């Protein structure tokens, strides 16, 4: 495969500025100056994945070593056969010797082909395993990232790291590893031969080594930043594509095709331009190397000629020397090329590691305990939260929900109701105060066990592709079919599911596109019913469901709310009037708190909101 790849490198950070002239101590071998530390670090981390395969890599190395021997045997045996045909001092053909030589040659060729195949076969496994574990590690990392990471990036951009960038690493590993090994072996071999022939000529032909090094370094310096830019641009383009394909319904509804195409073209053009530059620069390596090689040959010939005049070497030595130095130069070129391809791989790896270095959700504190089957007593103690300190979204909030109580949160959009839920489930961490469940700070529980006790029906229902059954089972994977059906029945979803041609085995298209919004919400509720959580959170759970259906669901919800602490966020006030406590929230603080009747008597905010909601009817009645 060609060394140039469309994918190159890059990260969204501003391009690194060359800070220190000269090489930093212990900088990577031939690494470009300004990035030496990063590159070496990236390489080292990459090795931690490659190194897992060191057993197989050692086998591949052994194969290559053996193969190099066979490759050398070929020309030697051809020489023997030719001698056999020429016959001992002009006699007839020595068929005995010829036969033996040709059998040997055949064996060597078969061996060579076999070893080459085995090598390729093994490397395919090795490189794909390395890539798989890298991809796995990145995906595992995603689990530990806070929601804020996903909220601020385009999905396609994150996807690009998992596909395009890792792909780059994959190509690099599979392309360069065996080339690197065979190159080192070949260089070592020819160097020994050359030194044995003539140390002086060896010195002359080594003139090219620093030149090759300088050239590779100069080009790699360019390409490494270009590749990095290319990978970053590719990520952006991927983000652009993914978002506009996902939202194509909106694109069409608003006639925005031309506009999104324009945005796409921008990113596409950027990628093309940086791609051209990256490819041209890396493409210069080979022609320039051949110039250097030929300068090397000329140098050997000229020095050789002068030495021959002085009688220090024979013509024969010069002739074979040139052919050895050819053998020396070829792998040297290969290595230079490997170095260049490596830049592209490192550019990909860098972006993968960059994601792996993102700040994670805080680790569970030492000594944190598992929260299992809590009574469900929830207390907010002077809780404050804000993305930035000067604009708090929740300020000094204190309340207490007794075990089994239902608490409704009402208030205008953006008042901070959903934030309260996000704090309780530790999607976000409080910036002040503390939240207690069963009298213990939620930060003292392990995060997983904490989230395990909640059953949440979110404002934006999300269904995964798969069958309806799978989606309901998302709440509890070991549930039986019967339990699934019961949960669906409780959520009033059983009826419509049964009407579908394949019932519970109906495959949902992406994000449940073949169901109506309301039906999707019913499934989301069934999912929670099945999970049997200790604390229930209903965040606008029924807002897209028609009110007749909602009544049935409410019955079901009332049923599962029994004995469970429940938080309800709703705009339709009639859905929450039976709650044990209603809290009116505005601008991040609790304005009023009490039961429906208490609040109605008080004639405050809640009273006004409630009246407002039925104003029309009252006027007409």
């Amino acid at each position, binding site marked *: 495969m060609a060394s140039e790849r*469309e994918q190159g490198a890059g990260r969204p950070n501003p391009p690194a500025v060359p800070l220190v002239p000269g090489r930093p101590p212990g900088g990577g071998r031939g690494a470009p100056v300004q990035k030496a530390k990063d590159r070496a670090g990236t390489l080292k981390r990459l090795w931690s994945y490659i190194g897992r395969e060191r057993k197989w890599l050692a086998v591949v190395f052994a194969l290559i070593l053996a193969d190099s021997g066979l490759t050398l045997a070929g020309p030697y045996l051809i020489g023997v056969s*030719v001698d056999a*045909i020429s016959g001992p001092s002009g006699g007839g*053909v020595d068929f005995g010797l*010829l036969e033996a030589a*040709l059998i040997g040659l055949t064996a060597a060729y078969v061996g*060579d082909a076999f070893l*080459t*195949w085995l090598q390729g*076969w093994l490397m395919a496994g090795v490189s794909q*395993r390395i890539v798989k574990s890298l991809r*796995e590690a990145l995906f595992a990392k995603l689990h530990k990232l806070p929601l804020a990471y996903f909220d601020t*990036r*385009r999905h396609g951009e994150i996807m690009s790291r998992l*596909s395009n960038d890792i792909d780059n690493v994959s190509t690099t590993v*599979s392309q360069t590893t065996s080339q690197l090994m065979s190159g080192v072996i070949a260089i070592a071999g020819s160097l020994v031969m050359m030194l044995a022939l003539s140390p002086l000529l060896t010195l002359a032909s080594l003139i090219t080594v620093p030149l090759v090094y300088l050239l590779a370094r100069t080009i790699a310096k360019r390409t490494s930043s270009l590749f990095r830019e290319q990978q970053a641009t590719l990520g952006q383009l*991927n983000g652009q594509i993914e*978002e*506009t394909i*996902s939202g*194509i*319904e909106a694109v069409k*509804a*608003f*006639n925005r095709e031309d506009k999104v195409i324009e945005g796409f*073209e921008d990113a*596409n053009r950027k990628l*093309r331009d940086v791609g051209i530059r990256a490819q041209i620069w890396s*493409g*210069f390596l080979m022609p320039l190397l*051949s*110039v250097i090689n*030929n300068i090397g040959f000329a140098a050997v*010939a000229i020095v050789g*000629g*002068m030495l021959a005049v002085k009688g220090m070497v024979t013509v024969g030595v*010069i002739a074979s020397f040139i052919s050895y130095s050819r053998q020396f130069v070829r792998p040297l070129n290969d290595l230079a090329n490997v170095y260049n391809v490596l830049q592209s791989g490192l550019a990909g790896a860098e972006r993968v590691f960059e994601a792996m270095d993102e700040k994670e959700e805080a680790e569970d504190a030492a000594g944190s305990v598992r929260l299992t089957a809590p009574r469900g007593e929830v207390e907010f103690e002077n809780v404050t939260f804000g993305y930035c300190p000067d*604009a708090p979204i929740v300020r000094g909030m204190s309340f207490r929900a007794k075990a089994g109580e239902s608490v409704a949160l009402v208030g205008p959009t*953006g008042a901070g109701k*959903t934030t309260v839920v996000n704090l309780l489930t530790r999607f976000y961490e409080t910036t002040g105060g503390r939240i207690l469940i069963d009298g213990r700070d939620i930060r003292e529980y392990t995060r997983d066990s904490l*989230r395990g006790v*909640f059953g949440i029906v979110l404002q*934006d229902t*999300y269904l*995964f*592709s798969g069958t309806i059954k799978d989606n309901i089972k998302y709440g509890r994977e070991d549930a039986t079919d019967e339990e699934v059906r019961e949960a669906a029945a409780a959520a009033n979803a059983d009826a*419509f599911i049964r009407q579908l041609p394949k019932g519970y085995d109906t495959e949902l298209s*992406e994000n449940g596109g073949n*169901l109506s919004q309301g*039906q999707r919400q019913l499934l989301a509720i069934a*999912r929670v019913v099945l999970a049997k959580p200790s604390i229930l959170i209903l965040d606008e759970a029924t807002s897209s469901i028609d009110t007749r259906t*909602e*009544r049935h669901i409410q019955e079901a919800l009332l049923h599962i709310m029994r004995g469970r602490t429940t938080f309800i966020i709703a*705009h339709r006030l009639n859905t929450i009037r039976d709650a044990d406590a209603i809290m009116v929230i505005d601008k991040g603080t609790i304005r009023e708190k009490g039961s429906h*009747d208490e609040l109605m008597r008080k004639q405050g905010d809640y009273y006004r*909101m409630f009246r407002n*909601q039925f104003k*029309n*009817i*009252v006027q007409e009645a």
Partner: protein
Amino acid sequence: MGNWVKYIRKYGLSFGVAFLLVAMEAACDLLQPTLLARMIDEGVATLDRTAVLRYGGYMLLVTAVGAIAASGRNIVSSQVSQRFGSELRSDLYRHIQSLSLRNLDRFDRASLVTRLTNDVTQLQNFVNGMMRIFAKAPILCIGSLVMAIRLNPRLSLVLVVVVPVVGALIALNIRIGFPMFLRVQAAMDRLNGIMREYLAGVRVVKAFNRFAGESEKFGRVNEEFRRSSANAMRRMAVFNPAILLTVNFGIVAVIWLGGLRVDGGSMQVGHIVAFVNYMTQILFSLMLISMVFNMLVRAKASVGRMQEVLSVRDETTWQEDAGRLLDGSGRVDFERVSFSYNGPVGAPALKGIDLSVRPGETIGIIGSTGSGKSTLVGLVPRLHDATEGAVKLDGVDVRLLDPKLVRDRVAVVPQKPMLFSGTILDNIRWGREDATEEEVAEAARMAAAHDFIAALPEGYRTKLGQGGVNLSGGQKQRISIARALVRKPRVLILDDCTSAVDVATEAAIKEALRSYARGLTCLLIAQRITSVMDADRILVLEGGEVAGIGDHETLLRECRIYQEIYRSQIGEEMHSDGVRA
């Protein structure tokens, strides 16, 4: 393959130039050994320093010419392959954007993304690789063949066997590799699909603590990808050694046959040596050719996948001059409209809907979940086309109209607000690109969004994440409404778009619409009866059919389903102490 001709036409010339440059490069490569030999023979051997320097100079000159050719070729091939790739990607993207939703539903969205990125890249790599060595390898190969045959026609009989075998191997390679790489790309689709789903549903994953389950799902697909890639690469790994072995067997045969002939006195040893040298050259060039074919196999799989998308013709049709018939009144008619998502044979989602909406009228639409409300209004902007009957705008069947024209006049606020990454301003301007900031603020005010936007630290320039994730549900809905209003449409469709907005805010929005929407035809889907009860008329849908139509009072008297809905929402409230007060 008609789609591809235009690229050949466009890049053919550059391709030709690259071909010439590669040929020049190859010629220089071929000259080098000869010059070196003469330098040794005429210079070093005779200790002639000027000859050494002369041939050394020639060598450098040839090197320089070769390097120039190679560099030129590098520039041309980089330009061509990258430009070709980017143009192809662009054409594919444009094509996808031009397709109707119905056509698009045939493809998995994640797969479309893969096709636009990875598949284009595969083809681009192939084009670049081909331009680098395509000319060189055949020139070397054919040159060596000709030289070998001229040298010794008898020994060339070996080549008669070797060359077809190698050809067969290459053909076999393509045959076997093609389906394997199709599988690799399909696995890549699934990997992207899982990833995409994970990202879109990350809140649910976290809420349900389902990391383990997701990891397992991902692990399975990842393993599948690993296996299919490793399998494909392993299969491919057979062919290079096989070609190597075939040619090497040829060399053994040449030496053996040569030995026999030398024994018979009809041939010289030197010929054997030279012949073997040519065979080595042929081997080298065949390896290069086989490398190109390795890329071809992958590229072929990708081309097939792109072709699959490109060959989908948009089934949406219209008449160019029908647009003149639009009088701008904003009248909407549904005439015996039936619709099924699966074409005429599928289960109907709508059955025989008849409704005429007068210009400026507000129609409320109510009905239970899955009764076909969204489907019905989606027919107006031609998101889908009626299976039977006709939907008319200004009295013109929308199927005669360019969808663009219809969508310019009809603005939809979807149930699920689809916001895009960018600023709030950008998102509202989706409705109309050239809206001034004044107009944007005006629309936001009507949608009751201005206050909360203005309260944000960066106001209208606040950046949203993909899908507007950093806003609450109600805020997203209001921006989505503002986006439709800034468009100043003739027909406004509100698809239950205030479900997450509190009642006071909803009332404010409706009030603003009432003053703004004078003369604006409005289709309003809602769950809350209070949202629709003051509409001019209300359409009650049940199971895809009209269950009642009329104003609030009429329906309350005559429509059973409407009564039920009313009771479920309001009946109880009427008895509550609060409202009676």
